[in-house]
């Protein structure tokens, strides 16, 4: 069972997102938030531009493993154009998913590929790094 999960975790989609550089850049005049996984040494800086309550632009810089990079990349792609309220709802569902709780599949469309992440407790923090940083950028807090 675990190996099937592993295949999914390192699927072509996730590997492609991890290599995707489209959202890996700094943007000027954006709100910045920094996230770290202390024991791993992984770091991420998130750049968020919100206008008229809509996420206009969202990018990130930093380094980490495939899971953390793919998660950040997917997050940026998915949230662009969403309202701040929608982004917060998605964030909550993502956190629920990462903890193995019930979550709204429609709201996490695409990112559901990580639905098995809770089966890998040592990797959950890799997946959630970008999302915790988003929480800081949106709401000024780390979950």
């Amino acid at each position, binding site marked *: 069972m*675990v*190996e099937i999960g*592993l295949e999914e975790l*390192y699927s072509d989609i996730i*590997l492609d997102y991890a290599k995707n550089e489209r959202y890996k850049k700094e943007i000027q005049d954006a709100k910045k938030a920094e996230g770290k996984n202390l*024991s*791993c*040494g*992984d*770091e991420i800086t998130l750049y968020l531009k919100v206008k008229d309550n809509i996420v206009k632009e969202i990018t990130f810089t930093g*380094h*980490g*493993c*495939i*899971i953390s*990079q793919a998660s950040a990349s997917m997050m940026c792609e998915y949230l662009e154009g969403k309202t701040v309220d929608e982004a917060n709802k998605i964030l909550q569902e993502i956190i629920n998913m990462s903890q193995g709780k019930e979550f709204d599949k429609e709201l996490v469309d695409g990112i559901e590929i990580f639905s098995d992440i809770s089966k*890998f407790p*040592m*990797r959950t923090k*890799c997946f959630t790094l970008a999302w915790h940083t988003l929480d800081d950028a949106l709401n000024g807090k780390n979950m």
Partner: protein
Amino acid sequence: MLSSKEYEEIFPALKRKINGHKLIYLDNAATTLRPKEVMDAVNEYSLNHHANVHRSTHTLAAEATKYYEDARSKVANFINSETEEVIFTKGATESLNLVAYSIANSNILRSDDEILISTIEHHANFVPWQQIAKIFNLKIKYYPAKSGIFDLSDFLKHITNKTRLVSITALSNVTGQLIPVNTLIKQIRNIRQDVILVVDGAQAVPHLPIDVKKMDCDFIAFSGHKMLGPTGIGVLYGKKRYLNEMTPFLFGGEMIDKVSTDGTTFNVLPYKFEAGTPNVDGAVGLAKAIEILERIGMDNIQEHEKQLTSYALKKLKELDFLEIFGPQDETQQSIISFNMKGVHPHDVAHLLNDLTGIAIRSGHHCAQPLMKEFGTSATCRISFYVYNEEEDVDKLCEGLNKVWEWLK
């Protein structure tokens, strides 16, 4: 050395299967596996003899005290020190914090004295010195190890007439480079007699014979759990001349002599540095672990790991998708760090575990200044102990090939 079957009997975890694969444990620098004999000794003490030590007069208290003090003698004999020079702590980290804080708090150092440490240190032998320098307004200097490799003659150039304390690891927890501490101490003493020499022995003491009298260090710190013992027990060896002069680190319990509203006086060594009820279970476990190590022989352990490390370096160098850190020669012992080109160490470690049952470490290994020298944020690290063998290295190489095929 014993056969793998014999080691399986001593270390039950070696019989475990991880995702259907036989466990190969290569994370010994983090902590070693537990021998059943150690846990049996702890259980026997805990269930039948446990009481608080050095206080009550009843039978159990006398037995518990004997267990605890016998453990101290065992440690002293193991490192060739005097018994009262062995202080039980929580681990190497606490030992190093104790030395740093107590030395700084005892007016042994003057404000223009320099503390010299290196950039290859574990955070436990880096941050305490940095912090006490800040708190007590002392000067700290860093020896920058080029490419993360310690060079003795280069290091000695950093000794000035202001150097008053040097703290150095005996074996890098990242590269496995064995630092020639005996020579280093001798040469420093030739330059300046009054330099206090502190050794972080967390990675060395479990893997090679250590004789503090021959080494002539002033302090050495190590942990029980990296040498087959339980977690939560460690040792600080210190020369009496300094320990007597130093102020206690923590206050209360057995370290007290007399207390009144006029003030407090403290117990003699080693109790002066052992506040509160000590970890007797841990000390008993550590004593049993030392018995096992002595049975195998520290010389045999060192020889076995030298051969194994040299074999592993040869095999890993054949994998062209790896970048290996450290000297990559016979000065490396029991630990090797590497990265798979373009792949993050966490991904390598996770896939190795799930696909092959091989346990390795990934991360910065509490050595961020060294990671900076390597120009990376993390590495994969393998580390050996008595129960590892060449077959483990062969399986690791197969596993790394598998991971590379998956992720390249």
